């Protein structure tokens, strides 16, 4: 018989309000590696979970400046240094005309970083995750609300953690198990 390894516990909650209450209790508890899953972002959840604001804005902001600078640099270098060409008697460095392209490069580079940064911060793409071992969990993208606690959490204990989830109102508590051989 295959040896099962417990990777976490999930508990179902009835609606967004219950999930937010659970999140507040989890925030005030000893658990750190928990997450609240919902079909749509719930207003006020970040505060309930004690989450900090995403750093993505700073990353994209910095890249936007680099993109703008890079765009101007490209235009300056190509038309002044590498390929100077007099066109309608305009100066080589016609900065007035450089706005649109520099702007486009800025928007393009920062949008790429907004997408890539979001994926990297979310550790996506990934092909599998313990929560997907639960069949009930498939409903999370439909109309179900879940809390998951990963076994990597130092305070994780099969019995105690599931009792705790039950005490904060969780239903259908389920262990997330994978076969050892799969590893």
């Amino acid at each position: 018989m295959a040896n099962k390894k417990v990777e976490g516990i999930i508990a179902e909650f009835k609606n967004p309000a219950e999930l937010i209450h659970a999140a507040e209790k989890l925030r005030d508890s000893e658990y750190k590696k928990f997450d609240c899953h919902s079909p749509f972002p719930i207003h006020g959840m970040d505060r309930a979970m004690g989450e900090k604001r995403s750093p993505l804005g700073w990353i994209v902001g910095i890249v936007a400046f680099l993109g703008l600078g890079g765009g101007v640099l490209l235009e300056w270098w190509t038309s002044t240094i590498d390929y100077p060409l007099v066109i309608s008697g305009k100066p080589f460095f016609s900065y007035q005309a450089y706005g649109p392209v520099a702007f486009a490069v800025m928007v393009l580079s920062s949008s790429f970083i907004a997408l890539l940064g979001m994926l990297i911060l979310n550790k996506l793409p990934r092909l599998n995750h313990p929560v997907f071992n639960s069949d009930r969990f498939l409903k999370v993208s439909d109309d179900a609300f879940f809390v998951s606690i990963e076994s990597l959490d130092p305070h994780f204990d099969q019995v105690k953690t599931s009792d705790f989830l039950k005490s904060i109102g969780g239903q259908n508590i389920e262990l997330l198990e994978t076969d050892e051989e799969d590893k």
Partner: protein
Amino acid sequence: MSGVINTSDTMQVEKVPLITGNQTFATITEKISSIAENKTPKMWFVLFGAASSLAIMMFGLIGYLVWEGVGVWGVMIPVGCGLAIVNFEFWVVIGHAGTLISAVLFLFRQKWRTSINRFAEAMTLFAVICALIFPGIHVGRIWVAYFMAPVPNQMGMWPNFRSPLIWDFFAVGTYFTVSLMFWYVGLIPDLASLRDRAKNRIRKIFFGITSLGWRGGNRQWKHYELAYLLLAGLSTPLVLSVHSVVSTDFATAVIPGWHSTIFPPYFVAGAIISGFAMVMTLALVARKIYGLEHIITLRHLENMNKIILVTGMMVGYSYAMEFFIAWYSGNPYEKFTFINRAFGPYAWAYWIMISCNVIVPQIFWSKKLRTSIPVMFVASIFVNIGMWFERFVIVVSSLANDFLPSSWDYYKPTFVDVGTFIGTFGLFFALFLLFIRFLPIIAMSEVKGVLPQADPHYHGHNGNGKGDNHGK
């Protein structure tokens, strides 16, 4: 029970709900996912066959063009910019409403956008694909189209960044790429819904890969929401800038009727009216076929009609102001160009433009007409026709009769011109049909988010009575 959603004094209670028919989260998922999951309707094959045949005709005509050269088009001197540029302008403006709905209305927190944004974004992408074909083939020798990109090459050449053509290339290229990313980010949670509902292996693998392992945890939503906001913030100046840049292609030229400072805002207003008209046309059809009356409600349609009315008047103001400035400038060529537009050889095009863009939208002053489905459907098609003629009037009538009467000529498109334009509709609808067949056509996670029961306070007051003490 759901009469009062918010009891707090600062929040306004919505008079008309955004989503009607007592929807729950599950009915939204079911309704929208099933469109992409059910057996393909026979009608779909008929439409797709027709659309893709037109698209194939377009590719055939492009092949003919490349083989024979631009002589197969009606372009000549003085009208060097013929239907290709008219069509490019036409398609690129259609795309603008998509970005406007998805980005600008998002930033203004207009929740009614959620029912139509996916649609509108897809429309943007496909319209911009159709648009990008034309400048590509208009260069004549399409194998050197890469000269526009700053690619190091053996000739040691670089693009001329002082040229509006290059601005155009960067602006439209960026616009397409950013729209694609914005659309995809919005799709991720909905692709996860389809993945979780998938019954067969192919669907499981396809949606498993495209949804990137999304699991709807708040630690993911946190970054996701900010990324979405940032992309919306980055797309917003794009809507305003792309068509401003396109208009500089004209405005920096010396041709009377082109050389005008009103062009950027005037083109943006035109972009919004034509884009909304196209969203309207498509949304009305999809709403009818797929029974989405509860999700795309009359309120959404009415709001769009109001925008068409406003932008129609902005466009009308621009037409009038162009005339005024032509007279006020004292420039005889400018004066002649505008009188010639309204009463010269292309007067028919001018009056089609005025009737469709300025007069037709005025019917939306009436609440009754603004909320009548057949009326708005016909009006939206008229506006689309009018906007095509606006481009035609600007591009062709200015070039055909410029400074020197001895160089004047009358431009007539050939069958290759017209066939390529009709073919782009085939390509557009073929792509659109593929989209409505295989992907969620409405942003499910966003629509769920605007349902009253998505608000944590909803359950607090109506359910277990303990929902109001969180977040302290």
